[in-house]
């Protein structure tokens, strides 16, 4: 095979990998604008971000767990549970500080529980967090007899209406979460060990790292972000709802993967997650403004996500081929 073809593959694959999803985001924007003229307005774009704020915030935590080679399926249910607790405490005490503190406590407890089981008892993260997804949601439903608990407070008003230089507190929280995550991942020991754990946890341990402790810390960070997501969610609903943010965890994982982070861990960054989140957010909003039935909504969504993933995978393969490395027939995004 001539070399220039190989270089072309390498370059094209890199371009596709770096800008492919961004391109799809733009294509989506164009299509939805075409289908609905009110789509591409500043107001709606802001709206998209605020609607998907919990997703964006939680995706930061999910990025941590995926890079470290773990899965976290619990954030959606944890937000529901923490939100319900917040609402219950607030309606009883009328004090938002106490209520938010209680929600923080609940989030951290869920994270601590998950993290401890995964790190110290070494139980597979999928099963732990899948169970948490079930029990946390179940507790939220049980605590409220499946009703949502509406409430009014200055805090909610502030979150929804205040603005700093045109930026709402909710969007500010998204930015802060990403900045926090970016800082932790790139500039701290915790971040370095997050990557190391995903590469080879046994070797990391042999290098003298307290792997259990850092795994636990990763889940606590996730929990902190869950709390942030809870504040956003209750503010937008003005209630604590046991059925809130259903399926959020899947959206978050898909956003992280589709952005180009490796499913098996050890690699990835938040820039990719951000683009993935934008993609999912625009897709959610665009499809719902078209007003279609639930099942078709999911069909379209699934289909479009698959296309995006296909590009992501193609670009990876092209790079691999272009580098001329071996065993081309054999690696999967999910392989081991």
């Amino acid at each position, binding site marked *: 095979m001539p070399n220039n073809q190989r270089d072309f593959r390498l370059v094209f694959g890199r371009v596709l990998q770096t800008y492919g999803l961004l391109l799809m985001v733009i294509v989506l924007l164009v299509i939805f604008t075409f289908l609905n003229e009110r789509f591409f307005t500043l107001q709606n774009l802001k709206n998209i971000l605020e609607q998907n704020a919990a997703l964006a915030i939680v995706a930061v935590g999910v990025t941590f767990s995926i890079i470290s080679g773990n899965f976290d399926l619990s954030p959606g249910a944890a937000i529901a549970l923490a939100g319900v607790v917040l609402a219950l405490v607030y309606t009883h005490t009328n004090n938002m500080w106490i209520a938010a503190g209680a929600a923080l406590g609940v989030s951290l407890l869920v994270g601590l529980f998950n993290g401890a089981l995964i790190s110290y*008892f070494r139980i597979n993260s999928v099963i732990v967090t899948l169970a948490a997804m*079930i029990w946390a949601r*179940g*507790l939220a439903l049980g605590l409220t007899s499946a009703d949502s608990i509406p409430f009014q407070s200055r805090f909610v008003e502030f979150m929804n209406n205040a603005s700093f230089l045109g930026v709402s507190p909710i969007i500010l929280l998204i930015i802060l979460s990403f900045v926090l995550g970016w800082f932790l991942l790139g500039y701290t020991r915790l971040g370095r060990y997050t990557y190391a754990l995903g590469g080879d946890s046994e070797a990391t341990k042999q290098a003298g790292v307290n792997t259990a402790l850092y795994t636990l810390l990763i889940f606590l960070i996730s929990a902190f972000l869950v709390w942030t997501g809870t504040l956003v969610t209750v503010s937008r609903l003005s209630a604590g709802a046991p059925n809130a943010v259903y399926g959020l965890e899947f959206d978050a994982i898909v956003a992280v993967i589709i952005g180009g982070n490796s499913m098996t861990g050890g690699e990835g960054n938040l820039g990719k997650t951000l683009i993935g989140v934008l993609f999912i957010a625009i897709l959610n909003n665009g499809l719902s403004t078209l007003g279609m039935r639930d099942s078709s909504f999911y*069909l379209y969504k699934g289909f479009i*996500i698959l296309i995006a*993933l296909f590009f992501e995978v193609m670009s*990876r393969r092209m790079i691999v081929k272009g580098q001329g490395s071996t065993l081309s027939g054999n*690696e999967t995004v999910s392989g081991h």
Partner: protein
Amino acid sequence: MTNNPLETSSTPPLAKRTVEFRKGEVISSIFSQFGILFIVILLAIVFGATAPRFLLVQNIVNIFKQVSVVAIMAIGMTMVILIGGIDLSVGSVALLAGATTMYFINHEVTNTPIAILLGLLASALVGLLNGVLVEKAKISPIIVTLGTMIAIRGLAQSILWLDNSWAWVKAPLFKFVANESILFFPLVVIVMLVMYLIFWFILSQTSFGRYLYAIGGNQKATYLCGIPVERVKIFAYTLCGFTAGVGGLVLISRLSAVSPAVGLRIEFDVITAVILGGASLSGGSGRLEKTLLGAIIVGMILNYLTIKGIPGTLQSAVNGFIILIAAVLDRLSKVRSAG
């Protein structure tokens, strides 16, 4: 050269250094091999003590009938998890099998056995599609099967809409399988056991089974041994679709109706059964007989919660916790034997 000050240099070479297993080692290795069996017994004791009805023969038979669906679907899931994959679409495939089979029967397109075959064929095709997307398009299995989970449910529901979104199971064969039993053994349980026997044989006695374990253990090395890794994996997904279809047909025979919600969220129970059975999600380890025990645990928990009359809203919470407790116990048994 000096003469070595060695008194031992005359001992024979490579004397076997193997020693007898100590009592503790034997016990702990049995414990780690069959730890899950102890968990089953432990749960039975605890549940029986707190809900006497739990241990009645009638109820135990009932548990097995309930377990059969998840257990059958867990067969294919074990294989897919063995190769380091996962299949979230099994619930939707179960619905698809039920919907297609009932469509053919109720509209008298074919007779019952052929309709069943067609339903199973459809299920296997979905499995094939999953396998091809994962292996040929190289998309991660979670995403692929999450996609087919949504899409196939949509497809199956569209088939149901042809019948006002609800189909009764009227075929006598289904009624027969659901209600009859041979010597205390309900037919559904016999179907389950036969499936387990067949697939146990495939996994432990054939080269295909060996390849599944090898791929899960080290895919690259297996490929370098000239094994057609892609084909083996695609076949595993196909078989998973097939067992999901069988599970779906058993499920609708027990429900005696196909509703759009058949098989919803069953994938969680199925995956839980496999993982409780000790399979590792990163592939390479897992045994079918333990998967069956895992499924029994899941069934026991669900049954117990119903007997205790735990309200539906809290049932899932308690279920989640009990599964975690089982996982912790399993882990502890392994830690003891490793230490």
